[in-house]
């Protein structure tokens, strides 16, 4: 939806200027003029006492054909790309090939040259660079402003962001600013072969329901994508592309949050998404020391340990080890679920593992419903026995 001022009816009372939440209206020669910042929210239409602002329906049919290309938000922390960016590039390549368009990455930081080359090597045809000292660390206002401007100028058709704590902050803000829809935490993306629009599939209701979401009449079509789900892009050393510098200017007070400090908590950060073997424990361990036994098995296989949320909640292990809907999504070659009941929120994070092995005392535990191999028994007997065999 977009709005326009009916010049003949405008009395110049400037009520609309005050009511517009986006400061998009200015008075020129005592007539209201709607500027670029307008998101089409419609507040002014209802507020104008003289019915001088109307909705223009043609905007609903925005000229969608102007929007081209698939963009990936190249989230960096401390100058390193997040692993999900490489997954997004892999997915973006597939989507772009089906539509017949190219892939671009948008990177924000204080120094992005090395990252740009990395992004080319992972398949970006173009890299939009926003470089400014204020962009070193993520801040909502700064990143939103810079990327919003780039979207309005270069008009991408699709934007993918990682569903990280940063992507899930930035994505919603951008979607409102650019007056478009956003699908959260997607686990599958497809192109409709007929109209070339994107179909975004995501879990809702705590993983009990999957929904496929479309965004037919607004552009860009935006998704945040769950880390650990898509296949990584291939690295081609020396691959080149086109770098495009974005204009970056901030007014004073425009970035309204200040980072006082950044605190890293997890001494050793679990890197669950890359592990080929994960040995996870649940409340069935009985005590935090149980993870030491799991670690033995994980070490022997060259993998890592994981956990259910119940153990994290009990303070047995750091949250970075948590597998599931509110933890990490994993798809190792083998996932051992030891003393884990198999709640839907846990399954949501490990169901697509190649092989699932469940060890549980209770033969009716739901975890067995998804296990390739089920062992009913005490994990303190079974795991040492497996260690013997390896």
């Amino acid at each position, binding site marked *: 939806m977009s709005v326009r001022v009916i010049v003949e009816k405008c009395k110049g009372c400037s009520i609309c200027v005050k009511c517009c939440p986006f400061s998009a209206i200015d008075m020129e020669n005592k007539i209201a003029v709607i500027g670029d910042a307008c998101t089409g929210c419609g507040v002014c239409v209802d507020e104008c006492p003289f019915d001088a602002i109307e909705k223009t329906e043609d905007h609903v049919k925005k000229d969608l054909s102007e929007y081209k290309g698939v963009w990936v938000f190249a989230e960096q922390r401390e100058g390193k790309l997040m692993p999900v960016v490489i997954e997004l590039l892999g997915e973006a390549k597939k989507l772009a090939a089906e539509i017949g368009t190219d892939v671009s990455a948008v990177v924000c930081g204080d120094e992005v040259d090395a990252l740009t080359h990395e992004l080319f090597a992972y398949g970006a045809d173009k890299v939009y660079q926003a470089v400014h000292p204020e962009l070193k660390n993520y801040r909502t206002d700064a990143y939103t402003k810079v990327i919003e401007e780039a979207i309005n100028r270069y008009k991408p058709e699709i934007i993918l962001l990682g569903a990280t*704590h940063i992507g899930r902050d930035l994505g*919603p803000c951008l979607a409102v600013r650019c007056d478009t829809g956003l699908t959260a935490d997607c686990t599958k993306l497809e192109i409709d072969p007929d109209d070339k629009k994107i179909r975004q599939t995501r879990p809702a209701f705590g993983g*009990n329901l999957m929904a496929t979401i479309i965004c037919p009449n607004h552009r860009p079509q935006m998704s945040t994508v769950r880390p650990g789900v898509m296949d990584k892009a291939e690295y081609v050393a020396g691959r080149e592309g086109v770098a495009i510098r974005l204009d970056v200017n901030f007014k004073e007070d425009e970035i309204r949050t200040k980072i006082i400090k950044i605190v890293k908590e*997890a001494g050793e950060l679990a890197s669950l998404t890359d592990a080929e073997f994960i040995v996870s424990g649940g409340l069935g361990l009985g005590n935090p020391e149980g993870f030491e036994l799991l670690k033995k098995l994980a070490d022997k296989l060259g993998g890592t340990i994981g956990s259910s949320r119940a153990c994290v909640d009990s303070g047995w292990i750091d949250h970075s080890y948590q597998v599931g809907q509110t933890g990490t999504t994993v798809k190792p070659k083998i996932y051992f679920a030891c003393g884990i009941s198999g709640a839907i929120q846990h399954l949501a994070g490990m169901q697509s593992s190649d*092989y699932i092995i469940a060890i549980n005392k209770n033969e009716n535990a739901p975890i067995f419903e998804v296990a390739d191999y089920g062992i009913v028994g005490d994990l303190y007997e079974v795991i040492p026995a497996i260690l013997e065999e390896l």
Partner: protein
Amino acid sequence: MKILVCVKQVPDTNEVKIDPVKGTLIREGVPSILNPDDANALEAALAIKDNDPNVKVSVLTMGPPQACEMLRECLSMGADDAYLLSDRAFGGADTWSTSNTLAAGIRKIGEVDIIFAGRQAIDGDTAQVGPQTAQRLDIPVVTYVQHVEVIGNKVVVQRQMEDGYELIEVSTPCLLTAVKELNEPRFMSIYNIVDACSKEITIWGHEDIKLSPENCGLKASPTQVFRSFTPPTKGKGEMLNGTAAEMSKNLVSKLKGLHVI
């Protein structure tokens, strides 16, 4: 100081069952609850009020008339007043529309210093409404808040990250979204329950908050649910038999046979 808390009534997704024949969600008989993160959001507001009796805490929801029950629960926990945005026109909203309606309601309520929301509702699961509402009100937002301290007209918060947290300072007015690590929500108090029964809940429709129906609900939503289905469960595999030693031996030889170890 005025604090507003956005709360949503949700089905308890732990109790949601799937109809095995139709493959659809069975919502009948599933209790409706205050969204868990929103209970943390409300607790954070009430804790600020505990320390400063001049603080007023309001709760706001968009939903069907039944949402009044949840608002009474919030009042019984200690909120001062409650607003319900309820209108046929609001139905079928995606987060674009939900945030637009909530923002219109907040504008009508008037000046507020801090707005709390939950990080994520357990039904829609998008975590988008908080930051989007802040954008529409043009106020700063901090998501994933796990600790809050109010110092004059500034708020210092811990923003949870995957591997730690950021300590962030922001001026009021601002919007903060709460995660469960923020606090332990209090229970309803008998005193407040009695009090809550006598309180009026303000109910507004689209005209009250000056939104035309085209800007609300399904009509205004850029996203549409194209189809929904129950997740395909991975078929049940093989249960191994025998003693722990036998099962382990069997397992390892099978995995070796599959060349996965």
